[in-house]
């Protein structure tokens, strides 16, 4: 959406109209009611981008932590920066947040180069640093009020408390909160200035599954409010659940980037029908004869590639017809773990350990 002001040719007063870039609109003057038509400006290159990173590099002596990476994040999307610990996620996000000095490269936030304009864009960003802990002896509400006073532009604290589902603990001291609540307060702190871009650095690390899902809900709600979210994580399911766009970083380099579907189509095996514990000899050959793409897996199960939506029924009827015995079947889509394995030769969870 874009908003444009206009001066009414009849009454001379200034009003505004909004719509999509390049859209031709019928507009009315709210003061005199005059009617006319106008086109909203075309989208220029970069106008729809919240974050632009070009050739970003960070060296610590001989170690290259971030190796000339480039990517961009569109306004209003949740961008997940996925990778194992030590891949360079936090180093990258902290360079974008101007906490660390890059060795080389350019970073733009809302079109402004942070090297020269970071003080200007501070008001437009909200940050939850990695392993952030706030002031132990302030209540949740006092904490939010304190951080909001640092800004000129402020969101309504009560609204944030409501939206983050923190009402029941707003008078509790921060030190007495559970890990999940602390992370939610951390996200709430990142919103006190009603930012356009929210950076969340591993917001669910160390949380139990229930607390993690609570934080996910909060993050998903940010998208509904039109915020751009830059999320770093080493949890595949977090990226799969939340992200509109995913970049996988490994050893300081981005090894894959795109939407979840794009990544699966490009690097995954698509969807597979698995026939478990098949005891009939020549089952794969029989399926292949019928035109299915079937293979034995390492554990002896049979995997059949799902190319069209009715293939499951066709395979099942073929199994019955050929009297092929098996224990169970399941249908599974490729996930990020498989993609990571395909790209790096190791599992993401193994890299963690």
């Amino acid at each position, binding site marked *: 959406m874009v908003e444009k002001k206009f001066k009414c040719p009849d009454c001379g007063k200034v009003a505004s109209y909004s719509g999509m870039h390049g859209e031709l609109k019928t507009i009315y003057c709210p003061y005199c009611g005059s009617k006319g038509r106008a086109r909203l400006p075309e989208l220029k290159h970069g106008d729809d981008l919240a974050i632009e990173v070009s050739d970003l590099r960070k060296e610590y002596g001989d170690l290259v932590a971030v190796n000339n990476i480039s990517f961009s994040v569109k306004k209003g999307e949740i961008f997940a920066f996925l990778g194992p610990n030590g891949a360079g996620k936090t180093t990258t996000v*902290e360079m974008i947040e101007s*906490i660390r000095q890059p060795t080389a490269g350019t970073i733009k936030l809302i079109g402004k180069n942070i090297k020269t304009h970071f*003080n200007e864009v501070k008001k437009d960003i909200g*940050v939850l*640093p990695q392993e952030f802990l706030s*002031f132990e*002896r302030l209540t949740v509400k006092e904490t939010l009020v304190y*951080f909001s006073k*640092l800004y000129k532009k402020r969101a309504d604290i009560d609204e944030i408390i409501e939206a983050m589902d923190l009402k029941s603990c707003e008078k509790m001291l921060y030190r007495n909160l559970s890990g999940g609540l602390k992370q939610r307060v951390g996200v709430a702190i990142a919103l006190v200035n009603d930012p356009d871009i929210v950076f969340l650095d591993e917001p669910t690390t160390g949380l139990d599954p229930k607390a993690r899902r609570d934080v996910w809900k909060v993050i998903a709600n940010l998208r509904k409010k039109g915020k751009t979210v830059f999320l770093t994580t080493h949890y595949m399911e977090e990226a799969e659940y939340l992200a509109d766009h995913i970049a996988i970083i490994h050893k300081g380099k981005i090894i894959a980037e795109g939407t979840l579907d794009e990544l699966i189509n490009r690097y995954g095996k698509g969807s597979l029908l698995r026939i478990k514990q098949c005891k009939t000899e020549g089952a794969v050959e029989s399926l292949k004869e019928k035109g299915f793409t079937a293979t034995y897996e390492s554990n002896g199960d049979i995997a059949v590639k799902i190319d069209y939506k009715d293939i499951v029924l066709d395979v099942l009827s073929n199994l019955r017809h050929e009297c092929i015995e098996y224990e169970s079947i399941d249908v599974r889509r490729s996930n990020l773990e498989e993609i990571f394995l395909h790209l790096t030769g190791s599992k993401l969870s193994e890299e963690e350990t």
Partner: protein
Amino acid sequence: MRVQVIAADFIVSIKTWLRSKGTLFWTLAFPIMLILIFGAIFSGMGDVEYTLHVQDLDDSEMSRGFIEGLNSTGAIKIEIVEPEQNVSSYIDEKNIKRLIVIPKGYEETINKSFIDQNAIVNLSFYLDPSEQSSNQVVMSIVSSVIQSFNMKLSNGRNIVGIDEISTITEDFRFIDFFLPGMIGFTIMQTCVYGSIERNTKFRKDGILRKLLTTPITRTEWILSKMLFMLFLSFISTFLIILVGVLIYGVTVNINALMITTIIATSFLFSGMGMLIGRFVKEEETADTAGGAITFPMMFLAGTFFQLEMMPPFLQTFARVLPLYYVNESLRNAMIYMNQSEAILNTIAVLAFACVFFIAGVLLTKWKED
């Protein structure tokens, strides 16, 4: 610079402080306990004893009587210097702080004074100017002994005199010495550990990284924290003075020099804490490093006892410690009322404050490497 931001940060510091029982205890109750305990212990032991070297060149009944008079005060420990010793070289060699020479002909002049009204005898008093505060005390004791001597001999006419006479005639006790030291020590502890906490715990918890992404500037933040440190320093000072006055009857003079010293001391030790926090990044290690610096300084800088009780090399070392000048400045400004000495020591404290605070501010950084 935005006052509202500074005020918001200052209020957070106060709230956090008030809600931490441990911090409250160490800031308020600990110095009060120390002054109560030390005050009680040393009040029972009597007054402070000062060493005075005496060279009796007359070796007469009257000169020995005068030495006996000095000895009987109980506040001065007399060390006799042999008559054949050269006083100047003896002072240099032995690092003597105070020495009185009773001249040859002392008794003869006194006897003559009964006939000749103009006959007087002056004792030579050698003083180390760096020991101004304790010199003042000894001077006043010697002066009172001479006065009583003159009173006995001639009903008050000045037959015996000394070249340097202090106007101070008060009788100082240990608590007078200890109270300003306690104030200096407390401010040092509060500011060093306060700065260490901000620079290590806040860094570990990500608060410094978070603040870096908000519009608060380093200047606004440091200013608000300094206001808080000053607030704590003045509260501690007030409580220590209150206990000193109400329980031990200490006479305290509150003046501009004392207040200047307290402000400069807060900046000095906050800067020192920043430097420790800058180079020792782990919280626990930084606390230990803080202790390793402040603990010996507390003992060596004349907080609990006079420098002259220590070996000469430690006395020299003490004079490079900032806390020594804080203690001396506060003592001279608050207790001894020796303005010239207080000004000199306050200037030294201000100089230390400038060096440490500016270095602390310049070298402390929020950004990560």
